[in-house]
C-alpha cells in the first residue's frame, strides 16, 4: 500500500516539524524553515487556481501584498494577532474575487494574456499602496507589534505560524484536487468551452479558486509581515514573488497538490542554502538554470514525472451492470404516434459581424425521435447546435426544452437541464484519461454524482461504446474512431434528454460507420432524443425519423426523410439545378 505509506510519512513529517521548536535549535534554522513554509504556502496557494485550471497568474504578488499590507494596517491599529491574520486573508480573498469577477467575464483572457493582466494588477495595487496612507512611501514598521510566545522565542512563534499556514494550504490543495470542484478545474485547464457545455460552472469555479488562492496567499503575507517586521512596497510587490511562485510550482509539478510544496522546498534550499557573498549569486543562477532545464526536459515537473505511473484503475464493472442498463431502456422499436415536442426553437437568429448564420429558424424536436439536421456547409447547423447548447447566445428568438426556456441561461445550466452534444472534431480533455473524461460528464450532467459513482457509471458507458479496454489511456493514444466514440460516451454519461450528434460518422471507415449507426439507434432506444447532423445521406435516410434541411441559415424543408429528399428545393441545393 504505497499510498498509505506516503500518507503516513507525510503525517510523520508534519508532526516532526511541529516538535522542532521544542528542541530549541539555533534561530537560524527556524528562520530558514520558516522561509521554506512561506514559499510552500505561496506556491501551493497559487496552484489552486493556476496549476489546476491552467490560468497562470503572474499576480500572486498582488494578493500576497494585499495580505501583507492589510495585516500591517490591522496590527499597527492594535488588533490582536489571531483576529488580524484571518481578516488579512479575507481582504486578500475579496480583492481576488473582485479582480476575477471582471477578468473572468472576458472569454479571450486566458494563457499569457491572463498572466500579463494579473501582473499589471500587481503594479497598479503597488502604486496605489505607495501613494496613499496605506504606506505613503517610507514603509511600515511592525516591530512594536507584540508576538505571543507560544513556545520559546519569537522565531519559534513565527515558525509555528508559518508551519500552520503551509500545512493548511497544502491540505486545502489536496481537498480541492479530490473534490468535484477540482475535477471541474482540471477540465477547464484542458478545454474550458467543452467543460462549460458539459455542465461545469466555469465562471463560478474559477472565481472560487481565485478567491481561495488569494485568501491563502493573503494569510501567508500577513505572517510574513510579522517575520520581516518592516514592510515596503518595493519588496512586497517585487516581481520576485510571482516569478518564484511560478518557478517552484512548475519545477514540482503544478497539476498535483504536493508538487508546489516539493518545488518550493527544493528552490528555497537552492536559494538560501547557499548563503554568503559570491555563492548567493551562484544559487540564484542555479534557480534560473533549474527553471530552463525543467521546462525543456521535464514539462510536467517532478510530480508530473512520478504520476506517469498511473494508479491502478477502479475495479471493472460487475457483469450485472449491462443488465441494469438494459433495464433502463425504453423499448422504441415500433414507431408510435407522434410524441410531444421536447425542444422547440422559435425564430432563432444569430449573426456574426453582419454574417447572418441563423436567419430565424423555427423547428421542433419530438420526444424520443431521431431528427436529421442536414444542409450544405455553412448552412448554420453547427451554429444552431452552439446556440441550443448555450455556447453562443441567440440574438433573437426563443428556445425551450420541455417547456423550460433556455434563452439567457449559461451553457452549464443548459447541460444540467439535459442537453448534451458531441463535436465533429473530437475535443477530449487531453490530460484526463478516457474514464476521467467520461466520469466528468457524469459528475456535472443532469444528475450530479459524486466522483466515485461517476467513475463507476463511466465504466458502463465505456462498455456501451466499446472503449472499456482503453479506459486508462489518454485521449492522444486513441484513433479517430475511438475518439468519436469517446465523444459519444461523454455525451451519454451526462444522461441527457437530448443529445446533438455533430457528424459522428465523418472520417470513419465503412465498418466503423455501421458500428456508429447501431450505437445511435441504441441511444434512442434507451430513451434519449437525438439530433443527428450528418452529410452522409444514406445514414440519414436509414436512421432518422424526420429530417429538417437548413440552407444559408434558414429552414427550407422538413418532414419524413424520403419526402424531404424529393423536395425540388433540397435537390437543387444538393445537386444543383439542371441546365437542360
Amino acid at each position, binding site marked *: 500500500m504505497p499510498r498509505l505509506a506516503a500518507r503516513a510519512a507525510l503525517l510523520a513529517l508534519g508532526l516532526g516539524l511541529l516538535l522542532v521548536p521544542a528542541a530549541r535549535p539555533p534561530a537560524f534554522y527556524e528562520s530558514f524553515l520558516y522561509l521554506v513554509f512561506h514559499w510552500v504556502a505561496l506556491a501551493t496557494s497559487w496552484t489552486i487556481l493556476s496549476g489546476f485550471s491552467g490560468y*497562470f497568474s503572474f499576480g500572486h504578488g498582488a494578493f500576497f501584498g494585499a495580505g501583507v499590507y492589510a495585516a500591517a494596517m490591522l496590527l499597527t491599529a492594535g488588533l490582536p494577532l489571531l483576529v488580524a491574520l484571518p481578516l488579512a486573508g479575507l481582504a486578500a480573498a475579496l480583492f481576488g474575487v473582485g479582480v476575477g469577477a*471582471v*477578468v473572468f467575464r*472576458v472569454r*479571450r*483572457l486566458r*494563457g*499569457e*494574456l491572463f*498572466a*500579463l*493582466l494579473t*501582473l*499589471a*494588477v500587481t*503594479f*497598479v495595487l*503597488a*502604486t*496605489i499602496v*505607495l*501613494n496613499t496612507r496605506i504606506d505613503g*512611501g517610507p514603509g511600515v514598521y511592525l516591530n512594536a507589534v507584540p508576538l505571543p510566545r507560544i513556545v520559546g522565542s519569537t522565531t519559534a512563534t513565527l515558525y509555528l505560524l508559518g508551519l500552520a499556514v503551509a500545512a493548511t494550504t497544502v491540505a486545502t490543495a489536496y481537498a480541492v484536487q479530490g473534490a468535484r470542484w477540482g475535477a471541474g478545474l482540471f477540465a477547464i485547464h484542458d478545454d474550458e468551452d467543452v467543460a462549460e457545455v458539459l455542465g461545469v460552472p466555469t465562471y463560478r469555479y474559477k472565481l472560487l479558486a481565485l478567491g481561495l488562492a488569494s485568501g491563502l496567499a493573503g494569510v501567508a503575507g500577513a505572517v510574513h509581515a510579522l517575520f520581516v517586521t518592516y514592510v515596503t512596497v518595493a519588496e512586497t510587490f*517585487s*516581481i520576485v514573488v510571482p*516569478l518564484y511562485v*511560478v*518557478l517552484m510550482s*512548475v519545477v514540482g509539478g503544478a497539476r498535483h497538490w504536493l508538487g508546489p510544496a516539493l518545488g518550493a522546498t527544493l528552490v528555497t534550499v537552492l536559494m538560501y542554502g547557499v548563503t554568503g557573498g*559570491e555563492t548567493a*549569486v*551562484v544559487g*540564484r*543562477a542555479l*534557480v*534560473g*538554470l*533549474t*527553471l*530552463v532545464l525543467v*521546462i*525543456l526536459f521535464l*514539462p510536467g515537473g517532478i510530480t508530473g514525472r512520478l504520476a506517469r505511473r498511473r494508479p491502478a484503475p477502479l475495479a471493472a464493472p460487475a457483469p450485472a451492470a449491462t443488465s441494469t442498463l438494459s433495464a433502463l431502456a425504453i423499448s422504441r422499436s415500433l414507431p408510435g404516434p407522434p410524441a410531444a415536442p421536447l425542444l422547440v426553437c422559435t425564430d432563432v437568429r444569430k449573426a456574426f459581424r453582419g454574417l447572418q448564420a441563423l436567419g430565424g429558424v423555427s423547428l421542433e424536436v419530438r420526444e424520443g425521435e431521431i431528427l436529421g439536421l442536414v444542409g450544405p456547409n455553412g448552412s448554420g447547423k453547427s451554429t444552431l447546435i452552439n446556440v441550443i447548447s448555450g455556447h453562443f447566445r441567440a440574438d433573437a428568438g426563443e428556445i425551450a426544452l420541455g417547456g423550460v426556456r433556455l434563452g439567457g441561461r449559461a451553457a452549464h445550466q443548459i447541460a444540467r437541464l439535459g442537453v448534451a452534444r458531441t463535436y465533429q472534431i473530437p475535443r477530449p480533455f487531453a490530460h484526463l484519461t478516457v474514464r476521467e473524461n467520461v466520469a466528468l460528464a457524469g459528475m456535472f450532467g443532469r444528475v450530479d454524482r459524486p466522483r466515485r459513482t461517476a467513475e463507476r457509471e463511466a465504466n458502463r458507458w465505456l462498455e456501451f461504446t466499446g472503449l472499456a479496454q482503453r479506459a486508462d489511456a489518454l485521449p492522444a493514444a486513441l484513433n479517430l474512431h475511438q475518439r468519436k466514440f469517446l465523444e459519444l460516451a461523454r455525451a451519454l454519461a451526462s444522461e441527457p434528454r437530448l443529445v446533438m450528434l455533430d457528424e459522428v460518422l465523418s472520417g470513419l471507415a465503412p465498418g466503423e460507420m455501421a458500428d456508429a449507426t447501431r450505437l445511435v439507434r441504441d441511444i434512442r432506444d434507451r430513451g434519449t432524443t437525438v439530433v443527428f447532423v450528418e452529410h452522409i445521406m444514406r445514414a440519414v435516410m436509414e436512421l432518422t425519423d424526420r429530417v429538417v434541411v437548413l440552407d444559408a441559415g434558414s429552414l427550407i424543408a422538413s418532414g419524413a426523410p424520403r419526402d424531404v429528399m424529393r423536395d425540388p428545393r433540397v435537390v437543387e441545393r444538393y445537386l444543383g439545378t439542371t441546365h437542360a
Partner: protein
Amino acid sequence: MPSFTLLAQSVLSGLLVGGLYGLLGLGLTLSWGLLRLINLAHFALAFLGAYLTYTLSTAFGLDPLWSLVLVPPAFFGLGVLGQLLFARFGVTQFGSLLVTFGLTVMIESLIQWGWTADYRRLEAPAWTASWRIGPLFVPRAELLALSAAVALAGLTWIWLRYTWAGKGLRACAEDPEIAAAFGVNRRRLALVLSGLGAAFAGVAGAFVALIYTLAPSQIYAWIGVVFAAVILGGLGNPLGPLVAGVVIGVTEALTMALTAPAWAPLVSFSLLILVLLLRPDRV
C-alpha cells in the same frame, strides 16, 4: 497648475522616453507576434548590453558609439543560438515565458557576478549633455535613442512589408503549414528574426547605459511598461511599440507633472489592463 514650460518639458521628456520604450519593445513584439515566443530575457539582454557599453567605455576608453558597432552583432549570434534552442525543444508560447524568465535570472546573476549589485553610472559628458531650444532642454542621448527607435522600427517595417523574407515571416505567423507548402523556410527566417531581436536589445542597452544609472535589479523595472507598449501597439507590428510607447511616455510624464512622480506606473498599467479587458483580440 504647473506652468506651461513645465508641461511642455513633460511632454517632450515623455516623447523621448517613449522612444526608449519603443526601442526595447521592438525585439519583443517581433518575437511574440511572428515567432510566438514571449522573450522576457530581452530585458536582461538589454541590460547586459548596457553593462558591456559601460565597461567598454570605462575600462577601454572606447566611445559609447563603438558599443553600438560591437555589441549588436555579438548579440545577433546569441539570438540565433536562443532560437536554435527553442526550435530544438519545440518550446510553446507559455513555455517560452518561463524559459526566458529562467534565462533572465541567469543573466542577472551573471551581471551581478561580473559588475556587483552596486549602482553604476556611465560618465560620457559628450553624450549626456542637453541642447537648449527656447525654454526647453533636449537631452542628447535620449534624442538619439528616439531617432534610433524610429529608424530601426521604420526599417524593420519596410523589411517585413516589402521583402520576400519579411512577407515569408508574416505568412508563417499567419499559417506555418501553408507558408511551408509555398516554400517559405521558416527555420532560417526565424533564426534571422531572433538574431535581429537580440541585436535590437543590444542597441537599446547602449542607450540605457547612456541615460540611466545601472543596477542588476533594474532589469525588472522595465518589464511592465514595455509589455504595455507592445500589447497596446499590436503584436508583430514594429511601429506599434514606438507609437504606444510615446503615448504611454507622454501620459506618464504629464501624470508626474500634475500629481506626484510615484503615480506614473498607474498610467501604463491601467492602460494595459483596459486594453486587455476591452480589446483582447488585439493580441
